[in-house]
Every structure is written in C-alpha cells, then in structure tokens.
C-alpha cells in the first residue's frame, strides 16, 4: 500500500518535471523559429534587428538570453539585479543621471564633427561588471564619409 502511494507520487513528480522540460523546449524552439524568420523578440543571439544591435552586448546579453530561456527574464530577481547594476555604477562614478544626458549631447556633437550621426539611436550607458565601471557608448553612423570637408 505504502509502496503504491510512493510510486504514484514519484510518477507525478516525473510527469511535472517532464512538463517543465517540455515548456522550456517549446520556448527554445519557438525562439529559434522566430530568430530564423528574423523576428527575434527575445534578447538577440544570432540575429539582431537594427535597434537591438545598438544595445550593449557580451556577457550581459548572454546572461539575459539564459535568463529569458530559463523563464527568469521578467522575474523580480533579474529586474533587481539589472537595476542595481545601473544604480551601483552611477554611485561609483558619483554621477547624476542628468549629467549623463549632457555627456550624451557633447558626445553627439563631437562625433558629428567626423561622421554623419543618427541621433535617435545614440546610446550612452554606465554599467558595472565584476567591479569595473564601463561607459558604453553606441553611436549609429548614417554615412561613413565626413559630413564636412
């Protein structure tokens, strides 16, 4: 009797685990399908749409992807970690977010002396990873030739 109950319980657990695995696999397959169609909506891995390409890349992106596939992307822990990375980076740089806006404007002015810059895609971000604070600037270039002689 006891053994039967235990076997039944084990069976349920196994079924639940299989169901979880299946949802995960379904997620990955759906993602791959969308990626192949160039419509990737998750954090980009192989194919990045134009807007996505402007974002920060590398480890953070990979972490974001893993979190997304693992179903953790929208979870509060992931959100908390992302917000903290930003906040801590600003704290360490002792820089107010307002200053970043003026840095953005200056960078844009300097860059446009050399290349034709598309302002809407300009991204300036402070990020921290493993104790180092990075200033990540992404400047979208419209044309490579100088805008002025």
């Amino acid at each position, binding site marked *: 009797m006891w053994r039967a109950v235990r076997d039944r319980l084990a069976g349920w657990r196994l079924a639940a685990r299989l169901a*979880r695995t299946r949802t995960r696999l379904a997620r990955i397959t759906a993602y791959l399908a969308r990626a192949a169609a160039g419509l990737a909506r998750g954090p980009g891995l192989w194919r990045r749409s134009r807007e996505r390409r402007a974002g920060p890349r590398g480890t953070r992106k990979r972490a974001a992807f*893993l979190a997304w596939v693992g179903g953790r992307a929208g979870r*509060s*822990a992931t959100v908390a*970690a992302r*917000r*903290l990375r930003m906040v801590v980076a600003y704290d360490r740089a002792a820089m107010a977010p307002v200053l970043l806006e003026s840095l953005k404007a200056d960078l844009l002015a300097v860059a446009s002396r050399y290349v034709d810059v598309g302002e809407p895609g300009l991204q300036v971000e402070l990020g921290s990873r*493993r*104790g*180092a604070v990075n200033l990540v600037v992404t400047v979208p270039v419209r044309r490579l030739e100088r805008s002025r002689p």
Partner: protein
Amino acid sequence: MDGPTAIVITSGKGGVGKTTLTANLGTGLALLGKRTVLVDADIGLRNLDVVLGLENRIVFDIVDVVDGFCRLKQALIKDKRFEGLHLLPAAQTKDKSAVSPEQMERLCKELKQEFDVVLIDSPAGIEQGFRNAVAGADAAVIVTTPDVAAVRDADRIIGLLEAEGLGEPRLVVNRVRTDLVRRGEMMDVDDVVDILAVDLLGFVPEDERVVIATNRGEPAIMRQDSPAAQAMRDISRRLAGEAVPLAETAPPGFWSRLRRVLGLGAG
C-alpha cells in the same frame, strides 16, 4: 588568521542582521577555541548585550573605558556559557561622539594583546559611529541581504572602507530565502557577489530558529537542526582561517544539472 585580528562587521543599511551575526560568529569563534571579544560600537543604541543574553551583567561600558573611568578588565563581561567569549558593551546613554577614532584604535590595540579575535559590531550608517567602528579594524566583513537597498548601501560601504585602508572586505549575504531564489523572485548569492565584486565569506539562509534563539538570548549557532546555524558555523571556521567549501544556495535546478551533464563549467 595569523596573530590577533580586529574584524569590523558592518553593512551600511540597518536591520540586515549585523548584531545577530556578530553575536553568533563570536560564539562560533569561541567554540573553535579562539579567545574572542565582541565590541559593541553602536554607542547610544546598545544591542549586542541583549542578543547575547548578557544584558543583566553590565557594570561598565566602552565609554567608561576610553574615559579612564574604569580599567578595561572591569568592563569586559565574560560569557559563562562559552569559554573564551567576552563582551565589551556600548554605552546606552551617550552618543557616537563620546568616542573618537583614535581612542577606538588604541582600545583595539589593547584588546588584541589579550584576545585572538576582536569582533567589532558597527552601527548602521556612514557617519561618526561607522568611522569609530572601522578605525581600529584590520579587516572588514560586509553584511547584506539580497535586496536592492541593502546591496546598494553595501556597495557604498565598500567604497568607504577602501578609503579607510580596508581594501579587501569579505561579504556575508544574510537572510537568503532559498524558496524565493528558486522561483527567481530574489537575487541569488551569485548576483550579489557579481554586483559588489568582493570575496564571499558565506551566506546565511533565512531561518526562524535564529529569531527564536535570539528572543531567548541564546546564540542560534549552537543549534544542530538549523541550516542558518550550520552556515554561521562554516563562516566562523572561515574567519578562523580554515578552508571550508561554500554550500550551494539552492538544490541544483534543471539548468545547472543540464550544464553539468553537458560539461559546461562547474554548474
């Protein structure tokens, strides 16, 4: 640990469990055979005595000692339950300015002649009280919980400790709720370590047995049935210089097991 050391336990944010952790780690170190003194540097908000269950035995306090009103030996309270554990209580009626950093430094030097370990319980905040607490310390332990406010404050404290010449603090992540971590609704220890970029001394899972033991004025670290006690015993041994491997935050989930099967990293 070579020679006597003064270690400050600090956090920035209040309520993360500094005092409880100090009391338990002190007990743990005493149980390991270290002559240990706990210094309550939270002048005006004395708490370490009541957490340790020694509140009825205070005659003199830290301010009496630095003012020369009594000798150090007279102010030290010997815990009769644990061989080698002592407390230097804070004053309850004075404020933080009753002690200066120089006096604290001298006091710690004096204590190090008598004891193997001096554990200093720092007050919350970054003002005078914090400066006093770190003045005499040779090393620092940062306590945080896995929430945004505590981690941010911890980062600030790490910066301030660097300015004080305590460049390599070690981190304790306290009150980790493994159930929430598993559901992805609480940052895990790796997240916190990654953000703060300091060495991990250990993490303590949330455990109601700690609350219960503290209510009674008994150190929870003695309890054999408590995961938090086990974690704190491990941390004490690491503080004493032993190499104790870190436990896992949560039982390995699907992805870490898959990673292990595929041989991708340690999982």
